[in-house]
């Protein structure tokens, strides 16, 4: 599914990713952990095509297709979704309007017919109920005045509505209370399927108790410096990143 090889990238001219290699096969969930400033969010922005994040070497493909050659919105239409570490506020655009515009734009790009208004509302009610989101909140301007946890929950709601194939969750657990963490994790787990894959960026083992990863990677100094099974997360929780800081 996702294949990243020897990726080098700069942010506003400063080298951040320095030869990152990573493979996430379809059906798997991979976790990425690593110290602050290691380049985890940078990786998520490079994969989704944010301006100012320039690839200087290496590449990334999704199902063999060169991801980096596509526009940000084209990547989304191919099924790449990023749950932002810091979701943006969209003043004046109700959440539902925003999501319907996005969904229809993706469908158009894939040559599929638009979703009808009743079908969209039905889907929205269903997904909102599953994530315990008050439907009235979806009529408010997206993320404007939402609490930190509400914004994160709204990211997962958007993910459920857009039904992407490759999911990147950047610290979706930060800001969530204990109940919300469970609800959101259930929402994410509901999306696990043999033809989807996920990259879960987190600092805490707790999230991985809910969303069980197939593989855990340590990202430090702009590279993957260690990979292992779920037990690696437990080890990091216990020992920290000291030994990897040297490897980086």
């Amino acid at each position, binding site marked *: 599914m996702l294949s990243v090889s020897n990726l080098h990238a700069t942010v506003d001219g400063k080298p951040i990713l320095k030869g990152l290699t990573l493979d996430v096969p379809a059906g798997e969930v991979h976790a990425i952990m690593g110290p602050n400033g290691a380049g985890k969010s940078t990786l998520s922005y490079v994969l989704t095509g944010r301006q100012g994040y320039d690839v200087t070497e290496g590449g990334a493909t999704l199902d063999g297709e060169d991801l980096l050659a596509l526009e940000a919105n084209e990547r989304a239409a191919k099924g790449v979704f990023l749950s*932002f570490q810091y979701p943006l506020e969209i003043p*004046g655009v109700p959440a539902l309007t925003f999501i319907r*515009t996005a969904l229809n734009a993706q469908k158009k790009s894939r040559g599929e017919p638009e979703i009808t208004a009743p079908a969209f509302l039905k889907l929205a009610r269903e997904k909102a109920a599953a994530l315990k989101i008050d439907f009235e909140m979806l009529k408010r301007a997206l993320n404007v005045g939402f609490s930190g946890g509400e914004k994160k929950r709204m990211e997962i709601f958007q993910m459920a509505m857009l039904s992407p194939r490759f999911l990147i969750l950047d610290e979706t657990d930060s800001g969530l209370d204990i109940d919300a963490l469970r609800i959101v994790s259930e929402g994410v787990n509901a999306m696990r399927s043999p033809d989807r894959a996920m990259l879960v960026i987190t600092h805490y083992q707790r999230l991985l108790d809910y969303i069980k990863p197939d593989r855990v990677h340590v990202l430090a100094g702009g590279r993957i410096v260690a990979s292992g099974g779920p037990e690696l997360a437990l080890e990091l929780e216990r020992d920290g990143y000291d030994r990897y800081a040297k490897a980086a």
Partner: protein
Amino acid sequence: MSVAAAIRTRDVGELPSRRDEDWRWTDLRGLIRVLPDASEAFTGTLSPGPFDRLAADHHVLVNGGDARIDVAAGKKTLVALRLVSRGVGAHASRVTINLGAGARLRLLESYESDGASVCQTALTITLAEGAALERIVLAQDHEDAVSVSQAEVRLSPTADFGQTIVASGARRQRLETRVVHPGGRASARMDGVYLVADKRHTDHTTVVTHEGVDGTTSQLIKGVARDQARAVFQGKIIVSEGADRTDARMGHHALILSDRAEVDAKPELEIYADDVSCAHGNTVGAMDEDALFYARQRGIPEPEARAMLTEAFIGQVIDRIWFEDARKVVRKWAAERLRV
């Protein structure tokens, strides 16, 4: 010195210039070397106006003339006032509007031109006690036109005045409103939207003078300037001595979508009274690139995402229009200009 006098006498020396403090960004004297001849009377048929379908009562002035709208005490009405320039001449119009006590008027005012005309409209608007006027102005001038509209509004206690001026610029376009506010629980809404592109110019100038206690003024102006366009906002609220407990809020926010576009803003609050609640905000900036990326990450192509964000930005002014049908016309008008 006035535009009306210049048109009447054909003396360019009468035109306001850079040296007049509140015309320094809309220097007509420096622009116009020779005033065109007086516009000829128009005999053809007019294409439909923007508010035709909403109003039963129409006042149409083509190439100048006078109009009078009276709403008797306690009456309620909806009027379309259409000011049209045809050809390349110069002309002036005069409009007098009177609302009796408790009268209510929805005024749908529009400006149109089709060439390098020079025109001026003077409106004198008076509201008696308890009267309510909502004035929606749609100024869609020709790129070569010089178009000036100047309204003098006099409010009485407990009157409600609301206006939303929507403009797309001209060679020079000036929309000026001066309100004499008696306080006395009267209220004024002084909103505006401008969307300027190419080499167009628009100028929103408003002055509200609070002369008595307990008055309210609320102003929200938002605009978008692209290409080499230029927008001017000059908003002044004067709270005179003794106009205590005035509540005045002013906001002007502009998006500049190109390096060569320009927005000049001069928001002013002059306060000579006590216990006044005043606030003003003024921002001029570029599109929020982070929000744009967020929308694109969700699958919305860039031009559509830009249009969506600018429409939402402007929409916050349009939402303040009381009359729902007019709100729809304005929203559609804005959407057509933003989805390019």
